[in-house]
């Protein structure tokens, strides 16, 4: 097997693929909550993805990737048998939800990828775990079967009501709590505005909330400071201090502004790619 070879690839939702990558060194020590940084082509960008699953025996690591820009589109063009240029990890700190007895995992969009290994872990530890998975519409819901197997209750919700209830994950969370559900921790992962909304809600509800911050990154080892964010009034690095933080302490407005630094250039790269792609 080649280093970083794509052993399996399957479409999970519209524009979302799961890749199983041969990377024994990463598989050897990785734990739920950690991530990898990969490079698709020579001189390509370094982009981070959460480790969704792994097999120490097979030396494989699975990632779930949503096509949103240049690099993720390039990745989507690769086939089984192709190899990535680079694949480094596991980076960041593993999640530790051990101290909680009753957790609700909230995954928005691609955030479900991050939430899934937690469901598996909690289930394996014999904990009570509910899962809320939200997406814009049915075609973007993913890992439904996997979640079904690894949760006590799975709640689906879509913006347009095409599957499950209509609404946002916060609506679901709110009604669950109002209906008497008791959680000692909410673990929420998704787009920044979603995590912000969840935190605003749980602050009111008084429930501890952990979020996984998907800041832009370069090295992923604390060397550049690109991934910095403000947590509890102090600057933290998502790559080495996180990626998980106490959601009630995170300055989401700043994080949202920071996520837009390169918007114009990213758009241009994608247009170039789509343009070239059309011509070939």
């Amino acid at each position, binding site marked *: 097997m080649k280093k970083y070879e794509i052993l399996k690839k399957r479409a999970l939702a519209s524009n979302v693929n799961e890749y199983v990558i041969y990377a024994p060194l990463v598989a*050897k*020590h990785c734990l739920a909550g950690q991530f990898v940084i990969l490079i698709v082509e020579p001189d390509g960008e370094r982009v981070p993805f959460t480790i969704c699953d792994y097999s120490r025996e097979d030396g494989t690591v699975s990632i779930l990737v949503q096509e949103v820009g240049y690099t993720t589109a390039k990745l989507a063009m690769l086939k089984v048998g192709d190899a990535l240029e680079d694949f480094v*990890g596991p980076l960041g700190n593993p999640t530790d939800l051990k101290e909680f007895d009753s957790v609700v995992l909230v995954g928005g969009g691609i955030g479900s990828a991050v939430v899934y290994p937690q469901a598996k872990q909690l289930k394996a530890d014999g904990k009570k775990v509910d899962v809320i998975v939200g997406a814009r519409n049915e075609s973007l819901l993913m890992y439904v079967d996997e979640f079904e197997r690894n949760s006590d209750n799975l709640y689906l919700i879509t913006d347009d009501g095409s599957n499950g209830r209509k609404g946002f994950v916060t609506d679901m969370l709110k009604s669950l709590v109002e209906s008497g559900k008791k959680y000692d921790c909410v673990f929420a992962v998704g787009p920044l505005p979603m995590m912000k909304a969840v935190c605003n809600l749980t602050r009111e509800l008084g429930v501890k909330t952990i979020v996984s911050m998907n800041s832009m990154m*370069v090295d992923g080892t604390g060397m*550049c*400071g690109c991934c910095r964010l403000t947590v509890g009034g102090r*600057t933290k690095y998502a790559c080495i201090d996180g990626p998980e933080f106490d959601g009630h302490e995170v300055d989401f407005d700043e994080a949202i502004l*920071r996520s837009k630094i390169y918007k114009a250039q990213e758009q241009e790269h994608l247009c170039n790619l789509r343009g070239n792609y059309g011509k070939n």
Partner: protein
Amino acid sequence: MVKTERHEMPAQAAEIRKHNFNEVALGYTAELAKEEAERCLGCKNSPCMAGCPVGVRIPDFIARVKVGDMEGAVKILNTDNNLSAICGRVCPQESQCEKYCVRKLNLGGSVAIGNLERYVADYALANGLENLCESECNKAGKYEGRSVAVIGSGPASLSCASDLARAGVKVVMYEALHKAGGVLVYGIPEFRLPKSIVQKVVDNVKSLGVDLETDVVCGKTVFIDELLFEHDAVFIGTGAGLPSFLRIKGENLNGVYSANEYLTRVNLMKAYKDGAITPILHGKKVVVVGAGNVAMDAARTALRLGAEVNLVYRRSRAEMPAREDEIVHAEEEGVVFDLLRNPVEILGDENGRVKGMRVIKMELGEPDASGRRSPVPIEGSEFEIECDEVIVALGTTPNPLIKNSMPSLETSKRGTIVADECGRTSVKGVYVGGDAMTGAATVILAMGAGKKAAKAILEDFD
């Protein structure tokens, strides 16, 4: 008759070079090298050597250049310096060897030792002589079957790995990034140290039989305990890569970079090239904070990306820690030095983008612990400067990843790994060298520390 004035290195004109990333200093021609070599008086007591942190036999190698024996010169130089093509380009010669040259004050200026070093090293690279040195390569020697893991691939690691490999030890080098070279590849810009040179040096180390494993973060991907199990010893050359910020308001605004991030995007990720995938902001007016080599590199890089650049430094010109060459080059290229100024706050617009900086004027007071006069703010002297990008170059500290993954490894308050002068740490079989041991320093010191540790490792094998 020998010209008595020092021969400065030919360089691209400032007006031209500030628009390109090609190397600024062009190197000596054979004639210039010979003429400059002839200026060396070959002093018996060799004061210059005392200024060299690794004791290169300077008059000896220069004497070889004088008579045109380039192989001889290479051999002498390479014996004490594994990275002469790099040191010839980036060493602060004016505060090392050249500082003690007898010609310095009244005899036309110090012999241009650094320029000559570069000339000899480039000759070696161009002629496949990079492995020529006085100590025999000892492949089949007594260290057969021994293996050492080297963590990191900066100057300290490259140097340690090559000495060990030369002695016949099997070496595996583990690097966190996707390319080897450490600061040489992600920090120091192309126009000062072409990456093709670094690549040649790395390739050469590999050609000695060193295996390079990139994408391996020690403390995450592998652990030192594991490496000790697979190898007979471990050398830590992980540098001091953690950037310091100012800790002032506005530091997380869009457009504020650590110099590390800025330079990494440009150098390692090639953001300066058209069509590069990794983005970088192209500020119109950039303020760089700091005055070391890193600050100069960041400032001159921003200039080349089309910005007007001001450098804000809280002391005066005399205290600037950068190499003299870099300061002069930066000034020639049009970097404006705002001296005796200190940032107080970075100002942003409604989109979270930098729009200016509030600074306070400083004056010099009593000397501090470093012996430099310490800057004192002048009350009520704050004012604003306009800018759309800020690059912070205030120094770096060692990354705690390694320490955190191995509590038994003794470290100092500053985060550096504690060791004896040969690099032996508190853990048996684990050695350290370079910035990871000393805190941010220089290429030559890191190179020298790698050599010392290699020697200690071999001695401890015996």
